[in-house]
């Protein structure tokens, strides 16, 4: 068997060998030693070829792709974290700005209210003083007018009393005693 295969030089002879292997009694292909050398040589060639392809091209390429993806994911995660930190800082800045603006607004409001109050107070005081002065003047006028009126009343009363006494008695009374009597009745 080994010799016939050893002498085989071409497809025709190969086919003959195959027919032999198929129907020759006891020809179990895996144990046919004549084919061992061929198989070992092709195994060596193709396995070395595969090893070279795998170690030089395939694994670096696929491993590189996996690593690139991992790096990309990690980079994206750190980028996202950075952006999150930034947005949190911005939020904090906004809140503090808002708080300070609120206090400032409150201060301004207080200040302007105080100012307005003070102004209103001053105006009211001035107005009140003015009114008080007018009132005092008016009271003074009233008092003088009443005094004048009262003195006129006394004169009229004295005259009227003198006339009444004259009418009743026919005697013209003494002016001094009439005045004294009027004064006494005014007092009474």
């Amino acid at each position: 068997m080994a010799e016939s295969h050893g002498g085989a030089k071409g497809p025709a002879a190969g086919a003959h060998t195959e027919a032999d292997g198929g129907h020759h009694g006891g020809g179990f292909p895996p144990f046919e030693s004549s084919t061992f050398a061929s198989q070992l040589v092709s195994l060596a060639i193709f396995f070395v070829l595969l090893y070279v392809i795998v170690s030089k091209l395939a694994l670096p390429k696929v491993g590189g792709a996996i690593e690139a993806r991992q790096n990309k994911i990690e980079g994206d995660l750190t980028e996202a974290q950075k952006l999150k930190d930034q947005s949190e800082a911005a939020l904090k800045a906004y809140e503090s700005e808002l708080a300070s603006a609120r206090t400032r607004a409150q201060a301004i409001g207080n200040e302007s209210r105080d100012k307005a109050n003070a102004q209103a107070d001053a105006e009211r005081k001035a107005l009140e003083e003015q009114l008080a002065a007018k009132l005092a003047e008016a009271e003074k006028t009233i008092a003088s007018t009443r005094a004048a009126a009262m003195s006129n009343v006394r004169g009229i009363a004295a005259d009227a009393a003198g006339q009444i006494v004259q009418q009743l008695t026919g005697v013209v009374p003494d002016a001094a005693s009439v005045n004294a009597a009027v004064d006494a009745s005014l007092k009474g």
Partner: protein
Amino acid sequence: MKIDPIHQFNIEPLFTIGHIGNQTIAFTNSSLYMLVAVAIISLLMLASGTQLVPGRLQSVAEISYEFVASTIRSTAGSEGMKFFPLIFSLFMFICVSNLVGIIPYTFTISSHLIVTAGLALLVFFTVLIYGIAKNGVKFFKIFVPHGVPGYVLPLVMFIEVLSFFLRPVSHSIRLFANMLAGHIALKVFAGFVAMLGFSLGAIGWVGGVLPLALTVALYALEILVAFLQAYVFAILTCIYLNDAIHPGH
């Protein structure tokens, strides 16, 4: 109709490459399927893109990569990654050629003992040479297990040495026998269907349903076995290499 379950394992020379001594070195159908396996693996690993979001082909390539890498890391540690190309080549070569071989009318490379023995011896000598080159005499500590009483040590050492040198035998025969037996069983059961039909007519065709169902079930099993045996071969390689990397464990 004669069932010939052995015919599928025939080596058919396609053309002659040369001679070594009185041996003719031919490019055989086995060589052709080795070429096919190498071409499929190269196509899978190189033609798939390197996109950020992988497509189908790229996913398969990356899953293969991660699968073999995690197998090595879990069995031989991170130092075992030195042998990543070797183990990846072994796993993919066996897995792809087994899966191609399960297609009807194709040839299964690993159904020949000489091929599996060649691969097993490659692993054996890699372990031996790397182990001695890295650890020197300490490598032989793998033959002296810890905590064994002195009086049984010679016996244990004898068994350890024997098992070490029998590793390539079991390593190669496991793969070879699994593929061979599976393919023979498939062929026999599938042959029953045709044989019953051609010899018994209508009754035979009805009776052929049972072996047909068995053939379908066996076929599914063989797909599993094709992958599993490649995985077993690769993981045993990792375990053997672990001895070379960390002797005395």
